[in-house]
């Protein structure tokens, strides 16, 4: 078991070497607090400013419309609560396949007296823009639809949703944690008012993310304290993290496009290799309109976690679509929303490829998956699940 293959880039990624180099001096050498007016503080402030500038350039937005946060989850909480609480009361529209960072935030708002509509998705996992139109009410205060789901990777019709929202004057928050730096995003063309994006999914450090806030969007802060980030997010800035984030985004500008093509081809190789050798397997999500490196497969009549364990023992990291936590079955709510039957959904395994993935890695995975699934199916009660 010397070989190790990491196919879980949607969970987190190794920090890019250039990013590590860029952020390292900000621990022991440039350690001032960016709020301090003296030289030590100004040096730290400059690091933050450069990072903000780089991200703004990448997103083609003004730098002062970017707020740094501690992670995708905070950005999502901030985006959704910030819009809703600024309006006090009303109706929120989201989808059934959002990340928990949005879903549970909307639920928390419901507990405070807001109402919510959770839009369904089709068999590919896509929201129908017409459903958004129908869901809008006079008291709708926010729409939050993700750009792509981490599990199946289908891209949502954000441009259409954005157009409809604008017609009705409703602000749109988009969780782009899985797409930012992987596929192009144009907040103006797509009609996005708030955009959540994160560093650790794109070879930046954990513990830092951002929220784009279109100028003029009515928002309130949710973390209170000092006057950081133009009073929109209190707390001493995570300077090394922000510096690393800026560098990671700059590198994405160079690497994103070629990598998407390469990783997309490797994902096809993975799917075709497995499909050729394993019966009763299917690929979830939209065949083309999707994240390049994500392959969500369902193995019928096998349980996700036993595949993840079997591959882990071969040094391969993939993630389970269904999870058995303290004795509760949890088939992926995303696959369930897409209408997958339970005997398929229980056997969902996601592979997510990244910049260091090679064809040899993929072949090793295919060679490992085939016998494993066969063995697991041998131990299977006939007609189970």
């Amino acid at each position, binding site marked *: 078991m010397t070989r190790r293959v990491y196919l879980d880039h949607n969970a987190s990624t190794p920090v890019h070497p250039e990013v590590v180099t860029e952020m390292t001096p900000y621990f022991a050498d440039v350690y001032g607090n960016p709020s301090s007016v003296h030289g030590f503080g100004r040096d730290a402030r400059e690091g933050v400013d450069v990072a903000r500038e780089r991200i703004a350039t990448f997103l083609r937005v003004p730098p002062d419309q970017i707020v740094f946060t501690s992670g995708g989850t905070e950005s999502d909480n901030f985006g959704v609560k910030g819009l809703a609480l600024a309006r006090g009361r009303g109706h929120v529209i989201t989808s059934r396949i959002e990340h928990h960072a949005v879903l549970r935030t909307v639920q928390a708002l419901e507990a405070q007296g807001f109402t919510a509509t959770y839009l369904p998705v089709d068999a590919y996992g896509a929201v129908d823009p017409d459903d958004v139109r129908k869901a809008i009410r006079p008291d709708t205060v926010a729409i939050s639809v993700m750009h792509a789901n981490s599990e199946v990777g289908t891209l949502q019709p954000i441009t259409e949703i954005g157009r409809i929202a604008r017609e009705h004057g409703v602000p749109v928050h988009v969780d782009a944690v899985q797409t930012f730096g992987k596929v192009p995003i144009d907040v103006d063309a797509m009609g996005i008012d708030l955009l959540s994006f994160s560093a650790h999914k794109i070879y930046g450090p954990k513990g830092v993310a951002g929220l784009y806030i279109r100028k003029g969007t009515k928002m309130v802060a949710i973390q209170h304290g000092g006057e950081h980030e133009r009073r929109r997010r209190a707390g001493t800035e995570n300077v090394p993290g922000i510096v690393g984030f800026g560098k990671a985004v700059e590198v994405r500008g160079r690497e994103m496009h070629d990598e998407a093509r390469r990783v997309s081809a490797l994902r096809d190789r993975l799917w075709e290799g497995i499909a050729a050798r394993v019966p009763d397997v299917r690929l979830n999500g939209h065949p083309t309109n999707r994240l390049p490196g994500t392959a969500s497969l369902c193995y019928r009549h096998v349980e996700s976690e*036993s595949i993840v364990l079997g591959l882990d023992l071969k040094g391969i990291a993939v993630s389970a679509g269904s999870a058995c936590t303290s004795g509760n079955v949890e088939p992926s709510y995303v696959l369930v929303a897409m209408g997958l039957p339970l005997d398929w959904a229980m056997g969902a395994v996601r592979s997510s490829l990244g910049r260091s993935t090679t064809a040899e890695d993929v072949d090793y995975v295919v060679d490992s998956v085939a016998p494993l699934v066969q063995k697991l199916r041998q*131990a299977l*009660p006939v007609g189970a699940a």
Partner: protein
Amino acid sequence: MRYSETLVDHFLNPRNAGLMREPDAVGEGEYAGCGDLARVFLRVRDGRVAEARFQAYGCGPTIAAASAGSELIALRPVEDLAHLKPEEVERALDGLPEDRKHAAEVVADAVRAAAGQWLSQRS
């Protein structure tokens, strides 16, 4: 690794996996919360387990527990097995994490059910 070497070995090389034709007894265990399922087949000679086979559906530990369980009961009097405790299955795996104890329970349930079936048929 949160699983013992023994457990991993049973998972990777399950013993006695698969269907048994015309068994003397069959028992099932199911874990409601989780959908985990184990089925045990017994062939009995002179009141003892002459052969055991299993089928299992569930996360890795459940498959390993079924495999370990099928070894554990070989040659034992069926009467004893009517009272098999999950702890015995767990010990045969050199332990289970807290949130996977149900793997041993499902298998012990299946064994007790099969033993019960054989005993009631005989009486």
